[in-house]
């Protein structure tokens, strides 16, 4: 099972909530499907995101995919380590491969996201 302390989107992003801040990345399943990730394009800090709006782009050797914000809020920080080492997303998707931190604008949005069990059902169904 995927980590139970995270919430998930149908687009395969995860979110970890800590107080009024959320950390966002893509799931191990998504990273595996994309293959070797070669580039991650992330927003500047300070940008306001709407829930499910595009916040960046992840590029693997075979595809380029948009990244969707699981929750609304202002971007507090991005994972600068990904600029030089995008492979962190494959190596440690739920940890060192995190992408952005968001100041939660609508904390209630988190409750709408999938829990670990529901996400496992989603990915098992393919």
């Amino acid at each position, binding site marked *: 099972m995927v980590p139970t302390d995270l919430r998930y989107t149908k687009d395969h992003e995860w979110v970890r909530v800590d107080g009024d801040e959320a950390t966002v990345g893509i799931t191990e399943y998504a990273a595996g499907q994309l293959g070797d990730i070669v*580039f991650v394009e992330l927003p500047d800090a300070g940008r306001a995101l709407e829930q499910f709006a595009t916040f960046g782009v992840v*590029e*693997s*050797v*075979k*595809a*380029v995919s*948009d990244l969707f914000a699981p929750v609304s809020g202002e971007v507090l920080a991005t994972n600068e380590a990904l600029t030089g080492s995008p492979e962190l997303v494959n190596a440690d998707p739920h940890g060192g491969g995190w992408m952005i931190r968001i100041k939660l604008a609508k904390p209630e949005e988190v409750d709408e996201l999938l829990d670990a069990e529901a996400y496992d059902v989603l990915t098992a169904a393919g």
Partner: protein
Amino acid sequence: MLATLGIGGVDELFADIPAPLRASRLDLPEPEPELQLAARLEGLAGKNRTNLASFLGAGVYRHWTPAAVDQLLLRGEWYTAYTPYQPEISQGTLQSIYEYESLIAELMALDVVSASHYDGAAATAEAALMTCRATRRQRVLVSRAVHPHYRQTVQAYFGGLEVEEIPVVAEGPESGTTDLAALERLLADPDRPVAGVVAGQPNFFGLLEPMAAIGRLAHGARALFVAVVEPVSLAVLAPPGEYGADIAAGEGQPLGIAPQYGGPYLGLLASTDALVRQIPGRLVGMTTDLDGKRAFVMTMRAREQDIRRDKAASNICTNQALLALAASIYVATLGPHGLRDVAALGAARAAELEAALAGVGVGRLHPGPYLNEFAVRVPSARDVHRKLLDRGVLAGLALADIEPDEPSLADALLVCATEVTTSEEIARFASGLEDILSGRPPVGVEAGAGAERTRHGRHAAEGQPESAPEPAPTRVRA
């Protein structure tokens, strides 16, 4: 097949094209025997005047192309409509594109060059769109001194985005160049942040722009700076990378491609490394294969339309491989010194042209520095242009033909010279102009034939001097 598609007729497939725009019937003449048809086509081709002394530039320039360029282009290996996606069978094509990119990158002093676009106008529009994607802003400022066709092309590409024109200075030493004070004002609007500023070097009037200053103003407003350049000029002018351009676009035609009417031409597009993922089209990179040997591959493929669909960097997913190859062979054949000679000789010929025209009382429209093209003030320019054509001289472009709504350009000709311009042609232009302006009649009915003789026989039959830096005296043939 219609039944499978669930449609009643072929017409339904074209439903998206408005009915008045659809061809109902092809209006073709009756078939003719091949012999007769060939004669008719030769007659049509004979209407082309290839013996003119041409001073026409305006974005397309005549240069001498070494015979090696066309000869190498004839090799059958280059003729393929196939995109070299599979590196294992396309090393030759991929290497030729890689070398093109490397040569243009050196000319531009920028990091990344695309595998080419349709023409300079298309490349400029793509550059403008790049600035919007990179900055997430929607407003682009284009100098009015950028080629009018390029500005129109940018407008055509910019559905939903804003394009605004930066005026040019009307009077004084900077007249004809981008108005920096106006640019500063346009950049200052906090509610409408600017994505990119586009200016040409040399600009449409042939004048040199204060590119570094334009770039500083753009960057001060966190906008990107796009330089529209003429590639031969880069052998003697500062390249875009040196004056802070983030993106450079230009027409590659002067690099070994004939000035064929309307194309096919070659769109040059280069950028800094920071914008590598915004550059549209394809890029070819060098890498090593499994055995550690040098290999060429398409890179950044994942950004193209067949993979990214509507999110692609451009909806144009092709390149001008054969013409890019022509440019590569041309640049490689001339080498850096040869290219510098071409640019410097063109500038010297243009200075000679300026002096010859001044000698018959025709002065420049703008006082600023130029390289090999400039506008001159001529009353009734379109009429004079037509009369010079009767005398075998193509007197550049009557600016009113391309900018009819600009009163300041009503009485002006845009003229250029390159290394192929001869002193005799310059003298012919100046004396023809003098005749026309002083109301003298044309030299005679055989003007066209005379023009051809001078071109091939260099006036030997007429006993004229080969070079005539001073305006030749009025000649009236008996």
